[in-house]
């Protein structure tokens, strides 16, 4: 038996439970919910949700950029530490990701609420309570909070792999520390930036819980709409259509990202 046949059960599994479901999404997207006939109605109805799409993309974009700005110095710092320290810090960064993001988001509610912890301090100082929650800012904060590790990890992985001898060579050729960073380290870290950006943007654009808890009706995002189509409104066809568009959107993003990176490996968890 050839060894590569060992992967066959897995391939069958993936075909049935990954590829086929995506096909079914497409099927439902083009099917009328009542009659089951082929229709473009669902796709057309998406037009109603364009503002929501735009908002989702916008908030996700802002969150991704903030994550990039915050995440880069952290990744850079960790990559420069000793082996043991790196492993320890990496674990610290990863740990929150493994713990229920529902509860962590709820904690932010407790922090940001009008009668929450932060406002507790604010009012204690005699100032008026700040409207922190139910704003776009709160949603962005929630996204950044939840997805920051997804930015730091690929960045760290890429920076850490940069051959230290390249840095030495640059120094040998006369570069100051800033120049070494600007001319050698940063350009080489670009695949990590792209990877991290993708890993933040994709979940951010499709989230539905963060916007519910930290946002208001004005911050309904596309994830919320899809969820409601499946759970409350029970229009799986529209939900499927929206999912399809979301998927295509993500696909396009990744395609653009891959254009800029010739790294075959996506730096994953």
């Amino acid at each position: 038996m050839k060894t590569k046949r060992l992967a066959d059960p897995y391939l069958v599994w993936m075909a049935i439970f990954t590829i086929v479901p995506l096909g079914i999404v497409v099927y439902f997207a083009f099917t009328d919910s009542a009659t089951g006939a082929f229709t473009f109605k669902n796709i057309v109805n998406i037009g109603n949700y364009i503002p929501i799409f735009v908002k989702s993309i916008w908030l996700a974009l802002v969150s991704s950029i903030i994550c990039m700005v915050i995440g880069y110095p952290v990744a850079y710092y960790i990559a420069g530490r000793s082996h043991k320290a790196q492993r320890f810090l990496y674990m610290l960064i990863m740990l929150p990701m493994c713990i229920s993001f529902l509860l962590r988001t709820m904690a932010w509610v407790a922090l940001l609420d009008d009668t929450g912890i932060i406002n507790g301090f604010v009012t204690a100082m005699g100032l008026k309570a700040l409207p922190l929650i139910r704003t776009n800012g709160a949603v962005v904060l929630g996204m950044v909070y939840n997805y920051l590790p997804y930015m730091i990890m690929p960045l760290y992985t890429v920076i850490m792999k940069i051959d230290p001898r390249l840095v030495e060579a640059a120094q040998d050729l006369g570069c100051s520390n800033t120049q070494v960073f600007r001319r050698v380290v940063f350009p080489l870290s670009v695949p990590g930036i792209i990877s991290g950006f993708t890993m933040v943007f994709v979940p951010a654009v499709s989230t539905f819980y963060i916007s519910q808890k930290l946002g208001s009706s004005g911050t309904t995002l596309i994830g919320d709409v899809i969820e409601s189509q499946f759970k409350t409104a029970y229009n799986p066809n529209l939900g499927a259509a929206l999912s399809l568009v979301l998927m295509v959107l993500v696909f396009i993003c990744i395609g653009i990202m891959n254009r800029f990176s010739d790294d075959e490996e996506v730096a994953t968890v």
Partner: protein
Amino acid sequence: MRTFNKVFTILVLVFLYIPMIVLAVASFNNGTDPAVWQGFTLTNYGELFRDGVLLPLLANSFIVAVISSLLATALGTMAALGIHAMGPRMKRTVMGVTNIPLTNPEIVTGVSLALLFAFVGTLLKVSNVLGFVTLLIAHITFNLPYVILSVTPKLSQMDPDLREAALDLGCTPAQAFFKVVIHEIMPGIVSGALMSFTMSLDDFVISYFVYGPNFVTLPVEIYNYTKKPLQPKIYALFTLLFLAILLVMVLMNLLEAKDDRQQSVARRAFGGLRKERAEE
């Protein structure tokens, strides 16, 4: 610049852990509002252990996590072996497919599986198709890529001659795997299994779309809970889970440290060959 990075990193870490601290503190709070401290107490923990609803849910999550990670590890390791033996073009395609559950938004994965099950349900004329099995299938599906991505690098790192040496010495391919290869890739298998377990335990979005009313996992129930005001015993639960996951992570960390040490010793021993003095 270095100190700025250091301080910045510390601030970011604080930022990441603030909610945990809030929740941990709230778990000891003698009151329901985490914002209002009403005295230290352990009653929340007591209530947690006496709770007839939460603990069974935790058990459910555990069961799904254990079973799905074991199955995903077995299936995924086999897959990794097969993928490793493929030519480059086939390998790239399969790895591309493997990446789909990772890069797809969770909501799309959840929705697509829900639709699949609904479709099958109508085909088989079954009305309540969602349940333990669908949940398990979904968990295995999103765990598989983690296992594969943990094991394949270990396969690539392994000296390919080792397997051939085993064959040369009389092992059938199966024997070669169980007597030699598996020892080399074990760190990858274990890390893939632990990763799957953790992801499974914590999964909310995908489970939310494929679960049935007869078998609910903890994160899904917490979502339903969070629609009403939270009971403090949930904070207690959270704190305990946090400590448990911390333990698992420390474990993984130690395993990696041991593996790294072994690799560097091996590398030094072989690298030393090139500078060998004729002492024998």
